[in-house]
């Protein structure tokens, strides 16, 4: 017959095992081998360090130039978008085709999540966009205008006004671009 102590240990063992596995997974323990993608690799991907396939010749070690462009509600930008195209892009006074350039905060990681966010708000001033738009495409202007991400914010128009996109906090839970 089990003693009270043995029963208690039997009860607590699954909890101990779960906590230990979790700590090992997040790197808090070093005595277990755990399958996973290296967090450093995720940050390095965002920095363009690794090339698992054919890559491009770079002119230097600086960051690429990224741009943000606005698109009409009649557009079809999304996960399948591979590159910037002017089709369905907004047009009007105060807006230049191709959008506005921006820079990223240097990629970093917290826990197992690598992340980055544009370093400042993306804004247009004194602009008139009479046709409804609802989407923002971020793309790499240096690398053939390849697409990065699409963000939607609801339909709207502008009349001699300002449009500001304020970025989320740059951390592992809210950053604009996260690699988990």
């Amino acid at each position: 017959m089990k003693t009270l102590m043995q029963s208690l240990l039997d009860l607590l063992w699954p909890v101990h095992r779960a906590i230990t596995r979790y700590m090992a997974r997040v790197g808090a323990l070093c005595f277990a081998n755990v399958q996973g993608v290296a967090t450093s690799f995720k940050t390095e991907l965002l920095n363009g360090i690794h090339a698992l396939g054919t890559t491009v010749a770079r002119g230097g070690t600086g960051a690429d130039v990224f741009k943000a462009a606005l698109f009409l509600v009649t557009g079809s930008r999304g996960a399948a978008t591979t590159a910037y195209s002017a089709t369905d892009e907004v047009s009007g006074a105060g807006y230049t085709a191709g959008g506005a350039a921006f820079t990223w905060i240097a990629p970093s990681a917290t826990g197992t999540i690598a992340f980055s966010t544009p370093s400042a708000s993306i804004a247009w001033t004194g602009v008139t966009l009479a046709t409804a738009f609802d989407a923002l495409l971020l793309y790499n202007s240096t690398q053939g205008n390849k697409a990065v991400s699409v963000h939607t914010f609801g339909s709207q128009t502008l009349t001699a006004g300002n449009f500001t996109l304020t970025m989320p906090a740059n951390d592992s839970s809210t950053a604009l671009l996260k690699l988990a």
Partner: protein
Amino acid sequence: MPDQTPLIFTSKGNVLCASLAYHHEWTVTEDVIKFREWYTDDAGEIVKDSTHVYLPKGVQLGAVAGGL
């Protein structure tokens, strides 16, 4: 003494602030917080319309190491 009457830039050029009506609205969803403010003239026409969007969270990619 210069004229101190405030003007505002609109689709009809610089006009007196006092001649326009101000409107604003907030839209709050899980994915976006949006503040829109606009001005109308005596005829009810929108002559200035601005929007400010806050993206409270971004997008996430998953990286998974496959088993052998």
